[in-house]
């Protein structure tokens, strides 16, 4: 590539002239080429070429010129977007102006003999007047004038050098031409005089001086300069010093200054950061209103840690609607990418890596074993601790007011354990946001010596002045700085936005700045946004409503633009630093930009855009957990168009995702949100059907994670039949959780009626399970067997048929109950085979399915009277229940473990079993009541208390009658008869 600016503007690539277009397009190219390798700000281009046009129009045109030039220049000279403008990525030597200036500069450093060819090369670059075809533009005129001066200077240097090496004859001719072209250029005349003198033409030299004097007098009314008059006198007296002298032109280039680039006016805060990095770690709290530089300080901390050879872990994806624990997912993924000695980690850490490090939300709990929330947290803390022993580690969490409760809980644990051991935590919270109090509460519970609050007051005038200089390159007048400081309160974001606005409006002076300063940063942002082309503003609005990163595909789908048009349109926003790009797409640089964009969009238009955003997300073949949540949010906000129920399936999926990370509270919150959405469904039947599905799941989650029976059951309500996997999961959950209080018959009736009325296969699957399950607990073994077999037949016919749900996996339960049924029928081999099947099914499922299998083992062993096996599985179930925080399962496990202990000779175990049974009864769940009473009777009999044992057997009989909860264990039934003594049936 060769670029010619020393003449009409042109560019040549591989011998072919490039078509640079009309004058404005050539001017854009010329400005970029004059600054090849350096950023030319968008505002400067607008200012130079569209001075009288509104900025939004000018930017639109400029974008299209850039786009066209990119097409013309191709890869030979790419135009790179680099805020606040563009850079022509071209070797400056390929631009004639740059080469010319460099050659002239070089010539100044060389002896005359060597300078001559260099200067000739420089002058040979000229093809006419510089920027000759752009002279209508003021920048081109100014640049051409500067270059013409430099050309004259170079010519003078060449003549001087030639004279110095004795080429006086040649200089006479060239100098004569030079002064003819530039009759007022005295240095040219001096050169001519000296050259004439050195060629022995003293009288001609004096005559040249006289000619100069005449020209100056006649044309300008001036006398020659003292230097010319002195030379004339020296020629007249034949001064010997006028002989040739070899000289070197001194290099007059100055040094360059590189700005620091760190946060201005934050010395105290930076000292806090340095202290934290150098010390043993702590939690740094950056609690300040928007714009005071929290994110900048986090970056400063990151820079310091990285400079110290440390590892920076950022909790990304923080925002309204982020999946539970997602910031920790990103932290662990980053940690996983950097860890050096995975073998040294414990099982908890490995499991945490398996669950969070993968981050794809598949939610199967990892393949290497069970993982509870407690274990997960332990694993994360251990991973950070291990990383902290090898290097300084900083964990950064921006916008912490938006994070979910589980993320905060884990943060609190991590800080408590690690802040004194070299790990630095930094948490930024925007004051006055709703979620800020939760963060402060968490921090308030930490030891005080672990926490340091980093003050971020407004900048003082000195710092504001520095910021103005950094942003504009000019030293602002004190009055300007004072006005900006007073208006912004020293808020760095406000200062930056205001200065960019004033600079782009060419109003950054004392007179203007005091006249009409916007009062609020939002007003500044609004005016900055108004300077963008309409299409760009439209795209930014879509990004604002997207709520998170928006990629080109999404923006194209929502607006109907093609991807190239999207890229062109967002470019000016990138250059204005209102938008930035990360790995997942475009994001606004600050939440205030989002608020400013959104506040002017009417409710109806927002609704339509949310519907379009949802449509764009739904078009994706695969959704990440975050995208699933985003989709649910957009559908919720687009409810007037898409209907209030549209978001519900995605909220259910998000709930399952939360459960897969043991974020029970978040799962419940999402299900409650789904119920809120459903309240707006106008069709009562549709509302009831969907609500039943959601409530069923909600009850399941609440029952197993709270340790008490959930809200009043739905059994007496009109429960719509299941039609799809989600509604089946909810329907099954409703019936099961509604009947655990001892109302199996009612649940069975509903399921039988649904089955009789006709159900799709997934619904039949659910109905057979409910009927089989209730029949077993009612002691109707044949009926239970029949329905559970039907379940297996349906599943075998269509392996895709599966009832979703992270809490309980139905297929595992079916196999477990089949085992118990086989035992009751006396087929122990079949019982063992069924239990093996349950185990194999559980092996690929998330917890608490494993607990379920342990409990089935323990129930079977208790029925068989195998205390050792029952004890082993009960203790495993109890341990996992504690780790997974499933208190309901723990109650069962505790009871069965105590029975095992009693049968194995522990005299106190029977009393422990009484206590465990009382706690179980208090939960409101009545499942297995009769069998547990019989087992208690057995335990007390083993302890020698036969009277109480007999009483317990009677209570078991009563419970069977009252609750319809029958125990059909042959061994326990025989035992009951024995304990009741003769005379009982």
């Amino acid at each position, binding site marked *: 590539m060769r670029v010619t600016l020393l003449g009409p503007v042109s560019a040549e690539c591989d011998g072919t002239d490039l*078509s640079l*277009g*009309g*004058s*404005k*397009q050539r001017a854009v190219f010329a400005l970029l080429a004059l600054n090849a390798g350096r950023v030319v700000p968008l505002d400067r281009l607008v200012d130079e070429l*569209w001075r009288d*046009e509104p900025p939004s*129009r000018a930017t*639109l*045109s400029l*974008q*299209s*010129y850039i*786009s*066209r030039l990119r*097409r013309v220049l191709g890869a030979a000279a790419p135009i790179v977007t680099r805020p606040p403008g563009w850079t022509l990525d071209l070797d400056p030597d390929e631009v004639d102006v740059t080469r010319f200036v460099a050659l002239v500069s070089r010539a100044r450093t060389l002896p005359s003999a060597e300078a001559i060819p260099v200067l000739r090369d420089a002058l040979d670059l000229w093809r006419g007047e510089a920027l000759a075809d752009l002279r209508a533009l003021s920048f081109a005129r100014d640049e051409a004038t500067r270059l013409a001066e430099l050309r004259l200077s170079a010519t003078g240097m060449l003549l001087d050098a030639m004279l110095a090496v004795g080429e006086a004859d040649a200089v006479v001719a060239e100098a004569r031409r030079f002064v003819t072209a530039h009759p007022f250029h005295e240095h040219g005349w001096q050169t001519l005089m000296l050259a004439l003198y050195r060629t022995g033409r003293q009288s001609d030299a004096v005559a040249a001086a006289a000619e100069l004097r005449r020209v100056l007098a006649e044309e300008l009314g001036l006398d020659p300069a003292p230097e010319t008059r002195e030379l004339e006198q020296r020629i007249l007296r034949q001064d010997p010093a006028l002989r040739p002298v070899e000289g070197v032109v001194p290099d007059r280039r100055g040094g360059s200054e590189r700005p620091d680039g760190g946060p201005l006016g934050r010395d105290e805060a930076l000292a806090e950061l340095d202290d934290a990095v150098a010390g043993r770690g702590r939690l740094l709290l950056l609690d300040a209103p928007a714009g005071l530089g929290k994110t900048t300080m986090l970056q400063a901390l990151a820079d310091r840690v990285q400079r110290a050879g440390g590892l920076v872990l950022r909790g990304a994806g923080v925002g309204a609607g982020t999946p539970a624990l997602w910031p920790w997912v990103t932290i662990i993924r980053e940690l996983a990418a950097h860890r050096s000695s995975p073998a040294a980690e414990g099982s908890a850490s490995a499991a945490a890596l398996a669950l969070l490090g993968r981050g794809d939300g598949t939610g199967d709990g990892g393949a290497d074993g069970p993982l509870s929330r407690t274990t997960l947290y332990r694993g994360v803390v251990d991973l950070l601790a291990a990383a902290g022993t090898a290097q300084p580690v900083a964990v950064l969490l921006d916008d912490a007011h938006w994070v979910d409760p589980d993320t905060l809980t884990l943060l609190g644990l991590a800080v408590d354990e690690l802040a004194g051991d070299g790990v630095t935590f930094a948490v930024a919270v925007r004051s006055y946001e709703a979620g800020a109090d939760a963060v402060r509460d968490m921090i308030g519970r930490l030891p005080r010596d672990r926490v340091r609050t980093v003050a971020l007051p407004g900048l003082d005038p000195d710092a504001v002045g520095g910021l103005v200089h950094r942003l504009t390159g000019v030293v602002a007048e004190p009055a300007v700085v004072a006005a900006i400081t007073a208006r912004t309160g020293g808020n760095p974001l406000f200062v930056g936005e205001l200065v960019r606005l004033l600079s782009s409006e060419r109003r950054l002076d004392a007179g203007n700045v005091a006249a009409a300063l916007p009062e609020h940063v939002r007003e500044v942002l*609004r005016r900055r*946004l*108004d300077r963008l082309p*309409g*299409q760009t*503003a*439209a*795209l930014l*609005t*879509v990004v604002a409503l997207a709520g998170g990163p928006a990629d080109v595909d999404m923006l194209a789908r*929502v*607006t*109907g*633009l*093609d991807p*190239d*048009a999207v890229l*062109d*349109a967002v470019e000016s926003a990138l250059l204005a630093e209102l938008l930035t790009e990360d790995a997942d797409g475009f994001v606004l640089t600050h939440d205030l930009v989002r608020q400013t*964009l959104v506040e*002017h*969009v*009417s409710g109806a*238009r*927002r609704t*339509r*855009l949310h519907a*379009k955003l949802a449509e764009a997300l739904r078009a994706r073949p695969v959704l990440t957990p975050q995208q699933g949540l985003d989709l649910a949010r957009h559908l919720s906000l687009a409810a007037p168009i898409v209907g209030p129920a549209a978001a519900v399936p995605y909220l259910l999926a998000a709930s399952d995702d939360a459960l897969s990370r043991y974020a029970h509270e978040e799962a419940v919150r999402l299900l409650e949100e789904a119920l809120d959405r459903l309240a707006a469904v106008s069709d009562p039947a549709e509302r009831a059907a969907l609500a039943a599905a959601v409530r069923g799941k909600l009850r399941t989650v609440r029952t197993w994670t709270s340790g008490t029976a959930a809200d009043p059951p739905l059994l007496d309500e009109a429960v719509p039949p299941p039609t799809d996997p989600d509604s089946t999961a909810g329907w099954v959950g409703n019936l099961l959780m509604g009947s655990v209080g001892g109302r199996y018959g009612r649940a069975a009736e509903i399921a039988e009626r649904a089955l009789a009325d006709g159900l799709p296969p997934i619904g039949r699957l659910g109905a057979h399970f409910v009927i089989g399950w209730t029949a077993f607990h009612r002691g109707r073994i044949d009926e239970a067997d029949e329905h559970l077999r039907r379940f297996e037949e349906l599943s075998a016919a269509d392996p895709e048929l599966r009832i979703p749900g992270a809490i309980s996996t139905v297929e595992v339960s079916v196999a477990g109950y089949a085992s118990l049924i086989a035992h009751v029928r006396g087929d122990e081999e079949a019982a063992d085979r069924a239990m093996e099947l349950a185990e194999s099914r559980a092996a690929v499922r998330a917890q608490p399915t494993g607990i379920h299998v342990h409990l089935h083992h323990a129930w079977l062993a208790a029925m068989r009277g195998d205390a050792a096996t029952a004890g082993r599985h009960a203790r495993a179930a109890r341990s996992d229940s504690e780790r997974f925080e499933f208190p309901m399962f723990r109650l069962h496990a505790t009871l069965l473990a105590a029975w095992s202990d009693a049968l194995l000779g522990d005299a106190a175990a029977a009393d422990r079993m009484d206590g465990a049974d009382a706690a179980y009864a208090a939960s409101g769940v009545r499942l297995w009541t009769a069998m547990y009473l019989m087992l208690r009777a057995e335990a007390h009999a083993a302890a020698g208390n036969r009277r109480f044992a007999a009483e317990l057997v009677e209570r078991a009989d009563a419970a069977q009658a009252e609750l319809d909860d029958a125990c059909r264990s042959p061994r326990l039934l025989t035992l009951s008869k024995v304990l009741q003594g003769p005379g009982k049936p």
Partner: protein
Amino acid sequence: MSSLLVLRRADRTVRDGEIWWELADAAASPDQPPAGTALTRRTANGATHVVSIAAVSTPDQDLLPRLVRDLIAALRRTDTSVISIRGGRAEIDAALLAEDFVPAGDNLFVLHL
């Protein structure tokens, strides 16, 4: 900023070399007509002629100049070598001249790219 107008290719049947463009509100309901439309035709030698152009024009809002500017910007991004368009209204003519178009007589303006 309340406007979310974008210039995009319309999904309308056209002949070879022709493109319908529409200036449409990205937040509009599907049944809402575009605020402006234009038809461009590409010739065999790589030139593009704006065959027709029309936009909503009321005393409060005249979108034709916006449509012209957006269309020129969009065409400039293509590999077309020449753009021609008929002017005739002072504001449109001024916009075209500002975009380096050259009057070719009979209200025709031409831009060589």
